[in-house]
C-alpha cells in the first residue's frame, strides 16, 4: 500500500466523483427552488448520454474519422458536449412542463411519483427506440497515458475532471453574477414571497430544470467517454447515488452537491483498497462488492449525525410547504 497506490485511487475517485457531482447538481438545484426531488433526473442523465451518442455519431459522420478527419477529435467533443447539453435542456423543460408544473399546488409526494413515472417512461422509450441493447460510445479522442511518478493518468481523466470543474465554476458564476442566477437564489430563499415581487416562478423553475438537465447531459457524455458502454438503465444506479450525494451535500446547496459528489466517489473508490487492506491485515476474504454497502452505511451515519447534510442549512420552518 504505497503512496502511489493511494494517489492512483485518488485520481480515479476524482473522475468517478465528477459524474456524481454533475448529476447531484441537478437534484440540488431543483430542490432549492421547488423543495422536491426530481426523481426523473437520473434518467435525464441517461437520455443525455444517448443524445450525446447520437450527436457524436452524427458529427463524426460529417467530419470523418481517423487521419482524414476535417476536425480534430477534441473539437468534435466540444461540439458534442455543447449541442447535447442544449438538446437535453429541452428534455428537462418537457419533464418540468409535463410532470411538475401541473402539480405545483399538489402535495410534494405526488410530484415525486410523477417524477418516478417519467423516469420509467424515459427508460422504456429508450428500450423501444434503441432496441434495449447496450451501445458503444465512440472514442472521440485518442487516449494517452501519462506516468507521473508511478501514477497512471490518462488524458481522458484529466479532461473529465477539468470539464466538470469548469462547468461547476460556470454554474457558480451564473448563480452569483447573473440576473437570472440571482433570481434563482432569491427563489430558493423564499418560494412564496419572491414570485410576488415579479420574479416568475415558472420561468425560474423551468430554467432550473434546463440547467440541471444540461449538466446531466455533460455528465452522460463524460461517462460515455470513460466507460464507453451505454444502457437504458445506466441512469438508475448512478442517478440514485448522485441523489444520495445531493442529500449528503445538504438539500439545495450547490456547493454541497459538488463536494458531496466528489466525496461519494472517493468513498466508493477507496472502499476497494480499504477492503484489500483489511483482508490482508486480518486474513479475511471480503469481496469488493461490499462497496455499496459500506458507502451507503457511511452516508447513513453522516446523515444521522448531520441531519441537514454536510453543507445544508438546518431544517427550518421555511421548508415546510
Amino acid at each position, binding site marked *: 500500500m504505497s503512496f502511489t497506490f493511494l494517489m492512483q485511487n485518488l485520481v480515479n475517485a476524482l473522475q468517478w466523483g465528477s459524474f456524481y457531482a454533475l448529476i447531484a447538481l441537478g437534484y440540488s438545484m431543483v430542490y432549492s427552488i421547488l423543495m422536491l*426531488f426530481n426523481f426523473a433526473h437520473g434518467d435525464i442523465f441517461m437520455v443525455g448520454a444517448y443524445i450525446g451518442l447520437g450527436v457524436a455519431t452524427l458529427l463524426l459522420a460529417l467530419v470523418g474519422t481517423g487521419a482524414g478527419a476535417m476536425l480534430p477529435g477534441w473539437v468534435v467533443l466540444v461540439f458534442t458536449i455543447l449541442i447535447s447539453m442544449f438538446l437535453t435542456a429541452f428534455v428537462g423543460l418537457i419533464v418540468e412542463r*409535463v*410532470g411538475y408544473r*401541473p*402539480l405545483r*399546488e*399538489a*402535495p410534494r*409526494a*405526488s*410530484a*415525486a*411519483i*410523477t417524477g*418516478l*413515472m*417519467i423516469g*420509467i*417512461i424515459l*427508460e*422504456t*422509450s429508450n*428500450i*423501444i427506440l434503441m432496441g*434495449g441493447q447496450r451501445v458503444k460510445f465512440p472514442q472521440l479522442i485518442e487516449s494517452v497515458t501519462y506516468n507521473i511518478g508511478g501514477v497512471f493518468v490518462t488524458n481522458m481523466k484529466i479532461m473529465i475532471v477539468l470539464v466538470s470543474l469548469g462547468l461547476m465554476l460556470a454554474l457558480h458564476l451564473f448563480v452569483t453574477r447573473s440576473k437570472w442566477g440571482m433570481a434563482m437564489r432569491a427563489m430558493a430563499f423564499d418560494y412564496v414571497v419572491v414570485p410576488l415581487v415579479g420574479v416568475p416562478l415558472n420561468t425560474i423553475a423551468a430554467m432550473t430544470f434546463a440547467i440541471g438537465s444540461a449538466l446531466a447531459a455533460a455528465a452522460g457524455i463524460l461517462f460515455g467517454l470513460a466507460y464507453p458502454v451505454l444502457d437504458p438503465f445506466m441512469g*438508475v444506479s448512478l442517478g*440514485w447515488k448522485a*441523489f*444520495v450525494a445531493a*442529500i449528503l451535500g445538504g*438539500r439545495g446547496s450547490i456547493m454541497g452537491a459538488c463536494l458531496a459528489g466528489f466525496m461519494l466517489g472517493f468513498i466508493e473508490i477507496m472502499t476497494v483498497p480499504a477492503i484489500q487492506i483489511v483482508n490482508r491485515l486480518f486474513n479475511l476474504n471480503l*469481496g469488493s*462488492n*461490499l462497496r*455499496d*454497502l459500506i458507502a*451507503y*452505511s457511511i*452516508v*447513513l451515519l453522516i*446523515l*444521522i449525525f448531520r*441531519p441537514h447534510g454536510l453543507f445544508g442549512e438546518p*431544517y427550518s420552518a421555511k*421548508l*415546510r410547504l
Partner: protein
Amino acid sequence: MAQTKTTSSPLPRGVKNAVGRLFASVPLLGFLFGFLACVLMEMAVGDQLANLLGLSKMPVLFGIVTIFKAIAGLINTLFKGAAFDPGTLVHIPMALIYFSIVYLAPITIVTRLTSRLANSLADALQQTSLLFSALVHLGLLYAILHFWGGMNDYRLIVLKLTLIAILVTLSLNIINGYMGEFSCSHPGFMAIGAYMSSMFTVGLFVDDKVLGAAKLSFSLAYLSFPLALVFGGLMAAIGALIIAIPSFKTRGDYLAIISLAFLFIIKSLFENVQALGGARGISGQPNWATLPVIFAVVVIGFWAINNFVNSTMGKALNAVRDEESAAEAMTINTRKTKMAAFMFAAFWAGMAGGLLAHVMRYINPSMFGIQKLAEVLAMVYFGGLNSVVGSIVGAVSISLLSEALRPLEILKWIVIPLLLILVMIYRPTGLIAFREFNIRRILQPRRPESKEV
C-alpha cells in the same frame, strides 16, 4: 382535499345513473351472490363457451388479456411489419361476448333477482354480531376467489400476488398516507420478511444447498408457517426501528432519505451475505403460501390496520401530519406515535414479504430494489392516500393492469406510468383518498327507501 377539477367518469352520466338505479337496492351480500354465480357459471360452461366463440382457451382475466393480445398483434403489424392475422381481431368481440355472458349477465340477473333475499339475509345477519356477519361475507368472498383462482394456475398466482400487493399497499399507506411522510424502505422491509421467513422454513424443514440440511422434519411442519411469517414481520419491524430512531427527531424529507439509504443497505447486505445465498438468493421454499393462508393473513392485516387507523391512537398520525405543534400541545407523544406506526407498517410489509417468498418459492436481492419501490408507491398513490379502500383499489388495479397489459410487452411500461401521471395531475392524492372504511355501513341491507344515505 378539495378536488381541483371535476373528474370525468369514463361512463356518460345517464349510463352511470341507470347502473346506479339498477343496483341501488343490492347489498354487498347480493353482489357476492352475483359474483359467485359468475364463477360457477364459468366453471360449468367456460371452456365450452370459449370453444364455441373460437377462443383457444378460457380467457384468464375477464377477456382483457385476449383483447390486448389482439391489439398488440395489430401494433406489431402496423409498426414492426409482422404478418397480419385477422383471426386475432375477431377475438376482441368474442372476448367481449364471453365477458358479457359469463360475468355481466349473471351478475346483473342474479343480483337483481336475489336482492330481496339478500336484503333479508343481510337484515338477519345484522341482528347477529358484527363479527359473525363479517365472517359470512368473507367466507363468500373466499369461495368466489377460490373457485375463480382454481380454474387456472396463472389466475391463482395473479390472485395470490394481488392479495399480497394489497397488504403491502395498506401498510405503506400508513406511512405515506396517514402519517404524511415519504418512506422508501418498504421493499427493504419486504426483503427482511422474505429472507427471515425463508431462513425459518427453508433452514429448518428443507434440504438446501445454501442453508444446509433440514434440521427438523415432521408432517405438520406447515403449521409453523404463521410463526415463520410473524418472525419475518418482527425482524422487519426491528429493521424499521433502526430507521425510526434517527428519522423522527426531525421533520420534513428526512425519512425519505434515510429510508432510501436503508433500502440500498439492506439490498446490498443480502447481496453480500453468502450464508443467505448472496446475489442468487434462496430458493426451494415449501409451498405453504396457499390461497387460504394468504387470504387469512391479508384479512387479518387489513383488520388490524383498519383498526389502528380508526383508533384515536392511529388518528394521532393525522394530527401529527396536519399540524404537529398542535398535536404536541394536545398531549400526543408525536415521536412515539410515529415510531409505533412505522414499525407496525414494517411488520406487515415483512409479513407480505414472507408470503411473497413462499408464493414465488425463490427470492433474491434484486426483487426488492428500486423497481419494487416504484411499483408499491404507484399502488399507494394510484389508489388514494389515507384510505384503506383506496389501497385495495390501487393494489388491485395496478396488479391486474400490469397482468392485463402483458401482451403489450414493453409498451406496458409506458401505459401504466402515463396513467399514473394523469391520476396525479387530476387527483393528486389518488383515486379514493381520505375515505374511511365503515364495515357496518358496507354490510348493511339496502332498501330503495334508504337510498338517500
